[in-house]
């Protein structure tokens, strides 16, 4: 049993990156419009996040410093402040979406209006952050979030045309699609950005410190990365594949979690629906926890406050105050009636700024013997790290123009 829980941090981090509310819907949208032709982006994203999460986990274990602390030390206060502002806004918008997502998932289960679930969801998230130990939190949400594996199961029960799926993976578009190249690339960047969202590394490296990983735990850190993120990628692809098989041929538009869940209901009936709803609730709840804690971590680490769930709240007061405030603001935004999933569209804009400002300092510090001793990066890691830094820069420059040109993928 210990074996599964040893990778809980990696799994929970991956949930926030690959199957949070934004991704649940986007993966389904992508499958219903592009088939499997964007699979390569998910694979590129998985490799990228594995590379950098592994670096930041290693830096945290060896030097005891979490990623955002390092960002300020190596980039200087000005750039770190720019990153902080962008990251904080991303976190806030994403948190709003996740709380909304929890409510939408609960609506699927109960037919009660989401608006009534918003405060319940926000308070539940707060209670877990306030009182529940980090390890219990990650074990429970990680494990329950794996219920989303039901999408992979459903895929088999749908008896898809495997060779058609396979040819789409190799970039042969399905006969049912007629999207413009600009929209294709917009979604490519959106998927890449989602796979490598900065709050994943902030959460993973801070989580490494919460778990008190030291140099001797480097193997465990590596295992978390190599199990968690590929698993997240696989879940993403399974959701897209189900949409490809069920929604694409009929031209069904994905507008909510309902359409996302449709293939599973079709393949596995009521049981499948129950499991998938459980998965939705667990994944959005886990993502909400990850994003809320990220807000606390980034602000606390920038300003040098005591932070961490390993401290009692009274010993990390500003850290907890910031998180409470974030939840309150997120709730406020939700009560204005805005569509929570649409809200995440705009966080793509801020991601464009936050991505390069997050990954460059990680690469620099992972090479600095003053922090890493003799655990500095090898040549292969640096080689791929620089390539990915280039990809990240391209994505961050192209994101906003593509968003404008395609009307955010309409």
């Amino acid at each position, binding site marked *: 049993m210990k074996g599964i829980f040893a990778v809980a941090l990696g799994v929970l981090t991956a949930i926030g990156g690959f199957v949070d509310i934004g991704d649940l819907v986007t993966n389904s949208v992508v499958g219903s419009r592009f088939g499997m032709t964007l699979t390569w982006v998910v694979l590129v994203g998985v490799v990228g996040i594995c590379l950098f999460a592994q670096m930041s986990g290693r830096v945290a274990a060896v030097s005891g410093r979490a990623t955002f602390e390092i960002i*300020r030390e190596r980039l*200087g206060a000005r750039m*770190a402040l720019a990153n902080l502002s962008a990251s904080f806004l991303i976190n806030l918008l994403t948190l709003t979406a996740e709380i909304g997502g929890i409510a939408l998932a609960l609506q699927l289960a109960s037919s009660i209006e989401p608006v009534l679930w918003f405060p319940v969801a926000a308070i539940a998230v707060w209670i877990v952050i306030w*009182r*529940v130990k980090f390890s219990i939190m990650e074990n429970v949400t990680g494990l329950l979030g794996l219920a989303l594996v039901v999408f992979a199961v459903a895929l088999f029960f749908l008896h898809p045309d495997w060779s058609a799926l396979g040819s789409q993976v190799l970039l042969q578009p399905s006969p049912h699609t007629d999207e413009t190249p600009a929209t294709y690339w917009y979604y490519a960047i959106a998927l890449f950005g989602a796979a490598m969202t900065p709050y994943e590394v902030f959460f993973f490296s801070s989580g490494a410190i919460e778990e008190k990983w030291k140099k001797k735990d480097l193997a465990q850190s590596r295992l978390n990365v190599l199990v968690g993120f590929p698993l997240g990628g696989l879940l993403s692809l399974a959701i897209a594949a189900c949409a490809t098989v069920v929604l694409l041929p009929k031209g069904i538009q994905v507008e909510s979690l309902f359409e996302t869940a449709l293939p599973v209901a079709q393949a596995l009936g009521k049981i499948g629906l129950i499991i998938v709803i459980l998965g939705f609730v667990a994944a959005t709840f886990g993502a909400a926890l990850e994003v809320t804690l990220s807000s606390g971590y980034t602000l606390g680490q920038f300003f*040098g406050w005591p932070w961490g769930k390993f401290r009692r709240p*009274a010993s990390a*007061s500003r850290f907890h105050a910031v998180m409470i405030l974030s939840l309150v603001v997120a709730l406020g935004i939700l009560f204005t009636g805005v569509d929570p999933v649409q809200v995440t569209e705009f966080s793509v804009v801020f991601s464009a700024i936050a991505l390069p400002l997050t990954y460059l300092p990680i690469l620099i510090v992972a090479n600095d013997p003053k922090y890493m001793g003799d655990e500095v990066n090898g040549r292969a890691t640096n080689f791929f790290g620089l390539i990915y830094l280039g990809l990240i820069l391209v994505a961050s420059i192209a994101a906003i123009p593509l968003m404008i040109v395609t009307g955010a993928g309409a």
Partner: protein
Amino acid sequence: MTQKRHLPPAPAVAGRVLDAGLDLLDRQILDPDAVPVSTVDDLELTTPDDLEHLDPDSPPIIESLLTGPILLTRIFGGRLPDSRFIRIPWKVVADPGTVVRVGVAADSLDASWTERWMRDHVIARIPGGRHDPE
């Protein structure tokens, strides 16, 4: 005008050498129990008596680490009045490494004022605030 000139190495110094921007600024300050105090946002140096004719024998020395609102003036410009400085005296600094360690408890320093305020007036008032998570 840039010429490639061969620069002689600086004379050796009998003690530790620190570059303020590289080694001190923006570093985390920890107390002896590894409790974070704040970040180093600026440094307060002794002011030379005569700025027009600097005395080669009395270089400025670091009086204190500064933190708090001075970060904003450092980034955006402007000048914070001396009375508003939040100081951590150089006397309490024990080790300026990748993390700056001070020799006194965080709670005893001015710099932890906002943390203590938030604790006493907000967080400790919420049920469970003083308990370890379970």
